[in-house]
């Protein structure tokens, strides 16, 4: 593999010999959720891969950044090209973004290193890597030690990023050999109105409790249109449980959960949501949770900061009136 390093910063050019490094994969220059946090957890050193890496690296403003355009590189080729580059780094931190979660295991296998997934912290000392992993929907916190180098994926929302610094940025040219890989034929665009959900700091989620058993399709649709309008008024995005997206009352791209979108908002307002593990598994680490549910013992209310035991439909109407949202 040949690595061409174009000097863009002020320090001398060096191979990647630091002990900790964040690896961030971007598309068209867009940083994934948790990128700045991963960079901070790795002591401010970061390698940006993908497309639009120069602008993404600049936006990160990390003390030290490397970037390589690997636009058309598929995972098999890329992992092989990265092995010689990253062999010396003892702690590699990926943000647990979709691309990060997808690629980190490949790199771990290629480097023959353990993978510590969904960490809430990761550090390095004389005895090796130390990480805290959050499991079983946050009910279990595991402290792991690893004498060998390791690959970690860091959950978003677990720490604050470093203050932006006008650090050095180096460009790397990676020679990626075509590997045995899948080929991307097309990208189907999602509903643009739903793109915001994963990134949103406030989310209002609707569940089956918002729909009366006898309600017809039109009424149900109106309910969720109202939910969206209320969310918009609160500066929030609207999401839903699978029951709702399966029924077609909200678009599939708005499903929150382990098989839908993963969010990590400051505020999650759940209306008539039971809180099944597949749903709460997509909530990340929400800072504030409000649950409106007739069942005071449902899991959603059990994990809420404020659980309001009431009819979610009536409350939705009341909120609409208070906020001056029409359609109620």
């Amino acid at each position, binding site marked *: 593999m040949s690595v061409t390093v174009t000097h863009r910063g002020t320090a001398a050019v060096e191979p990647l010999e630091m002990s900790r490094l964040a690896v961030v994969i971007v598309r068209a220059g867009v940083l994934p959720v948790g990128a700045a946090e991963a960079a901070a957890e790795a002591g401010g050193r970061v390698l940006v891969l993908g497309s639009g890496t120069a602008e993404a690296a600049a936006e990160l403003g990390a003390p030290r950044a490397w970037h390589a355009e690997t636009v058309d590189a598929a995972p098999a080729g890329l992992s092989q090209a990265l092995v010689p580059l990253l062999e010396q780094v003892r702690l590699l931190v990926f943000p647990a973004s979709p691309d990060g979660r997808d690629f980190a295991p490949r790199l771990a296998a290629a480097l023959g290193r*353990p993978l510590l997934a*969904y960490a809430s912290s990761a550090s390095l000392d004389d005895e090796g890597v130390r990480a805290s992993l959050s499991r079983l929907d946050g009910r279990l916190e*595991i402290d792991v*030690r690893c004498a060998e180098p390791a690959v970690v994926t860091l959950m978003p929302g677990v720490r604050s990023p470093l203050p932006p610094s006008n650090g050095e940025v180096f460009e790397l040219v990676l020679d990626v050999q075509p590997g045995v890989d899948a080929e991307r034929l097309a*990208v189907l665009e999602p509903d643009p109105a739903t793109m915001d959900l994963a990134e949103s700091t406030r989310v209002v989620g609707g569940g089956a409790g918002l729909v009366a058993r006898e309600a017809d399709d039109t009424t149900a649709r109106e309910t969720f249109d109202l939910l969206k309008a209320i969310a918009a008024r609160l500066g929030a995005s609207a999401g839903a449980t699978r029951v709702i997206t399966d029924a077609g009352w909200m678009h599939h791209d708005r499903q929150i959960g382990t098989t839908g979108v993963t969010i990590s908002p400051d505020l999650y307002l759940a209306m008539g949501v039971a809180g099944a593990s597949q749903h709460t598994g997509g909530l990340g680490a929400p800072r*504030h949770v409000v649950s409106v549910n007739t069942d*005071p013992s449902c899991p959603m209310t*059990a*994990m809420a900061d404020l659980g309001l035991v009431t009819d979610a439909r009536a409350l939705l109407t009341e909120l609409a009136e208070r906020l001056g949202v029409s359609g109620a």
Partner: protein
Amino acid sequence: MNIVVLVKQVPDTWAERKLNEGDKTLDRASVDVVMNEIDEYAVEEALRIKEAQGGEVTILTMGPERAVETIRKALSMGADKAVHLSDEALKGSDAVQTSYALGKVLETLEYDLVIVGSEATDSRMATMGALLSERLGQPQLTGARKVTAEGGTVTIERQTDDGYAVVEASTPAIISVMEKINEPRYPSFKGIMAAKSKPLTTLSVGDAGVDEGQVGLAAAPSQVVEFSNKPPRQAGQIVKDEGDGGTKIAEYLASQKFV
């Protein structure tokens, strides 16, 4: 088309799941166990491809003796045969070690496709598809909500957080499926009866050519030093609506400076 489906046995998500105090591994003995639910979708998808174009569906499970119950369920859904990798030495293996052991068995099987679930409910790692691709040097098609396999080519619609991509690869390939892909069937009575006589091969690490020194808790590069069970969040305040529900929410949002 010959397909291997990877099926894992996990504690029921409704059961109280916890780690053992002693070796700090997941307690899999004292809880109700089930087939990892997404793996039912993986089995279903394999059966649909087989029913359309012929071939054989093989179930592969690594797990304790008890995991045989889960294997039987997959066979009763309609899979043809199964391989059970079961050995005390494997207990406590981490994900990279597990992919090594499963990869060893896969190397001895003839297949066009390997189908795994997107993630296991116990660890929630969602890594096995990518790990096996890297290990076996076969294309990675993860996060499929639709699979089309024809001749030597397989195409999936891949679900990502920001949309869908159509991705294609030549076989053999590794696919992981999401729950939107199909609706798994229930085993029929006939299926349950038939499952009892379907071929099931049990392998020890030795049989599978797995190096004992590379698997299991003792060889795992990472050690759990400590763990704590905790409520996911501070127990909050639960209040009844006394006609002022909207006000209560408004007050809460205001107190946290959301409005």
